[in-house]
């Protein structure tokens, strides 16, 4: 009985394979790598890539290799891989959008080997573009020493706005790295003084945030982190205006590059709660 079932299964599979072959005209076959983990990934990849009568994808979860067969007069490898990437799966041609990857189920969140990490200084560089009149150039160069600290702070804040504990922990780790990288001897006198004052707390807070993924705890610690950062940014200045904002419900402040309120203490539930209390230029 059981073997009969098996035979039927095999026959059926055979049938479906031949059927597929019959459907796709001028079929061209290629084997490419697609990053993924599990059986669920397999069905998602195959569904995203296949298109009735035009393209058929079959992915092997052991080898991570996918066999693409498609009608070369109607589509091409790029189009298929783009659809798969939009579903969350990297290949050697396309990287999935971050949102598509992060909305995959946990078991599907494969290691993104194909993705090259962002250079730490790239982001800071973007800011250097802000127009500065010649008289303030030297001042802003000094500020650059702390630039990456503030940039990491803003990344951490953005993660808290989104309510993503994992991302917040990662960004806090970056903040910690940035703090330890600061060469204090290059700081000007007044900045140096404040730096010495807040250094310990800053280090402790960023370490504690990076040690947990519990968004509630992270937000609590973020209060004092924000307060110390504020003291620092007030003397050291930033290359563009920074807004010191206040949330009455959390009774806490934060720093932002935008005057538009996006509350890191409540995220989406109370996103626009709060007001700007000071503009630091």
């Amino acid at each position, binding site marked *: 009985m059981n073997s009969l079932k098996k035979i039927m299964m095999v026959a059926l599979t055979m049938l479906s394979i031949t059927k597929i072959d019959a459907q796709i005209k001028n079929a061209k076959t290629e084997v490419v790598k697609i990053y993924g983990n599990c059986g669920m990934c397999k069905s998602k990849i195959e569904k995203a890539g296949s298109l009735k009568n035009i393209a058929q994808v079959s992915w092997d979860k052991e080898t991570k290799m996918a066999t693409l067969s498609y009608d070369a007069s109607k589509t091409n490898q790029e189009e298929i891989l783009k659809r798969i990437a939009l579903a969350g799966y990297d290949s050697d041609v396309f990287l999935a959008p971050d949102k598509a990857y992060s909305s995959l189920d946990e078991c599907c969140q494969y290691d993104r080997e194909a993705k090259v990490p962002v250079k730490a200084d790239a982001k800071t560089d973007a800011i250097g*573009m802000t127009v500065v009149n010649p008289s303030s150039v030297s001042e802003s160069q000094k500020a650059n020493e702390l630039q990456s600290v503030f940039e990491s702070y803003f990344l951490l804040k953005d993660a808290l706005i989104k309510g993503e504990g994992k991302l917040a922990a990662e960004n806090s780790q970056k903040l910690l790295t940035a703090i330890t990288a600061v060469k204090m001897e290059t700081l000007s006198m007044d900045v140096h003084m404040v730096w010495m004052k807040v250094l310990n707390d800053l280090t402790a807070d960023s370490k504690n945030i990076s040690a947990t993924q519990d968004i509630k705890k992270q937000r609590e610690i973020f209060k004092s982190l924000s307060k110390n950062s504020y003291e620092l940014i007030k003397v050291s200045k930033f290359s563009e205006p920074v807004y010191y904002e206040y949330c009455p419900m959390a009774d806490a402040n934060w720093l932002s590059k935008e005057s538009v309120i996006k509350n890191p203490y409540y995220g989406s539930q109370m996103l626009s709660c709060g007001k700007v209390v000071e503009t630091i230029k």
Partner: protein
Amino acid sequence: MNNFRLIVLFFFVVLSVNAQKTVRYDLYVRDTIVNFTGKPKRAIAVNGQIPMPTLTFTEGDIAEIYVHNELEEDTSLHWHGLFLPNKEDGVPNLTQMPIKPHTIHKYTFPIIQNGTHWYHSHTELQEQIGMYGSFVLNKRANDPTFRKGIDDLPTVPVILSEWTDMDPNNVHRLLHNASDWFAIQKGTTQSYSEAIKAGHFKTKVTNEWKRMNAMDVSDVYYDKFLINGKSESQLSQFKSGDKVRLRVSNGGASTNFWLTYAGGKITVVANDGSDVEPVEVDRLLIAASETYDVVVIIPADKTAYEFMATSEDRTKSSSLYIGNGIKQLVDPLPKLKYFEGMKMMNDMMKMNGDLDDMGMSMSLNQMDMNVVMYPEITGEAKGKSDKKMTGDDYNSNKLSDITTLNYAMLKSPMKTTLPKDVPVKELRFELTGNMNRYVWSLDNKVVSETDKILIKKGENVRIVLHNGSMMRHPMHLHGHDFRLLNGQGDYAPLKNVVDIMPMETDTLEFNANVDGDWFFHCHILYHMMSGMGRIFSYENQPPNPLITNPKLAQRKLFADDRMFHFMAENDFATNGNDGEAMYANTRWSIGTEWRLGYNDMHGYEVETHIGRYIGKMQWLMPFVGFDWRYRRMGIDEHEQNLFGQADTKDNRAVFSAGVNYTLPLLIIAQAEIFTDGNLRLQFERKDIPVSKRLRMSLMWNTDKEYMAGLRYIVRRNFGITTHYDSDMGVGFGMSLNY
């Protein structure tokens, strides 16, 4: 003394002219065949390419551009955003006569500004089929406004556009005939069955009760969207850490584009060719004909980041990959929640067709009513909530952590104030329109129905625009930049296009400083061709040497929006032929309906009406007509109508007068009196959207005639039908329409 000053001035001008560099371009305009979709189609290429070549100058140059018209039709080129003498502005029949086939026209003007601009044909619909290109004006190296870190970045001109396989004249005709073919292609029919599925039946009924057809954020379905003429392309010369300045122009004929970037924030550094203080955003919408300079950075090695332009209706997008290596994609924009948009429109629409902003004074794109349709801002569709909306509920920057650019965020790096102590002329316009009949106007008048607006040289002109229509309109002024009053005080940004969303009010002002007849119009090509614009004309200006016969020029200019559009359809059914033909323009309609049986008993009947549409919404149409019928009933049977009058259906040739009025639920009520004294009242509703492709029509009148029909739309001009008619009985058939 005065003479002496003139002479000195003259020498100065001559000297500086001599010091200038003349830069010459030759443009050969030719018919071509393109293949964007797999089907070869006609297009127009300049120097063999689409888009037209990028023209580059430096401030202070003299431009000399020779246009060689090798088409079999007229053409012209308009230099969008340029300050130039009026006769070089390139608007046919207004600033010059059209460039005739196989002739050469020379444009020449000094370049007295810098920034990102573009150029395009201003003749008929040529802009839709290839005649658009970038026009880049570099700053001089010693320019005091030169911005280190911005003006010295590597620069790439980027021009956005769209492609349709359909002949644009046909696109234009279909728009005027309220064809819903584009909606079917876009999947935005918003029919009753789709409404029921989405839990929005009541929304749909209310919408039709308020006499609205399904509304969309775009008018036309396009097959492809293009960046520099391609759906996908790559700039692989850039590497990690590089900053790139993209000079983006929207050369689309009717498409607004969302711009998003996979490598992080987009820094906006200029708009419409004028510098603005750098502002970082996650995304921006570039309206048709606007230009934005944006700076993006490549954050990682061996990676190309997607810069994506998505049409506002989100049907498709086009990608530019910046960098070399694996392609990092950006999140695609999720599909619009149309029924949420419909519900929002219902709330805003008053019964008389006016829009009601419910006390939210809206301006500068800060509140976008369409956010109710954006899942990335307002979440996935979630059925109904009856919460009263306030201004903050439409402010996308407050609703989400995505920062979207709006006009209030643009700030000029220098003061832009106008001369003081000069007279101020204030003008107000309401942007008006009517999607059902595709009439677009200012103050309910099209170009040909108005005189030129006279302005005096030296005065400041302030224009207050209010959009009372249901579509957004990018209004463009030729030959001048205006200040857009956006709360930045003396640092209001300079623009030459202002995109105004429904219900918004925006104020702009400029100093009248160059003689001429300057066009001010909506830059949606099909709105402009429908007459949405005005002409500003300087008082006491010298005549334009290129317009030798001003009367003729004006008549040809007005011909654009006076144009009639033709449509016809016929249902070939088992029980007879049923059809209509219509020839209509902004105000007039000549329509004929016929019912032709296959034998005398079923009868033959032709009714012709010539009418004029009245009012902004054009719900009222008085008409005169002629009615001819012939029928044999076998036993010479006479009938009576509902009013007890003898029916003359069997043999009738009479004139008539009457009126059509559109009732709620888009029912057309018709009262008609005939020269034989007979009176007829009729109610008819055509094309009820039952499902995506199924339409139902219903009719009843006091001659005791009635009809019910169904039509399934198979292709643009082909459908399968069934109907029941009181004269001809049940029939099945197929309908053909043009």
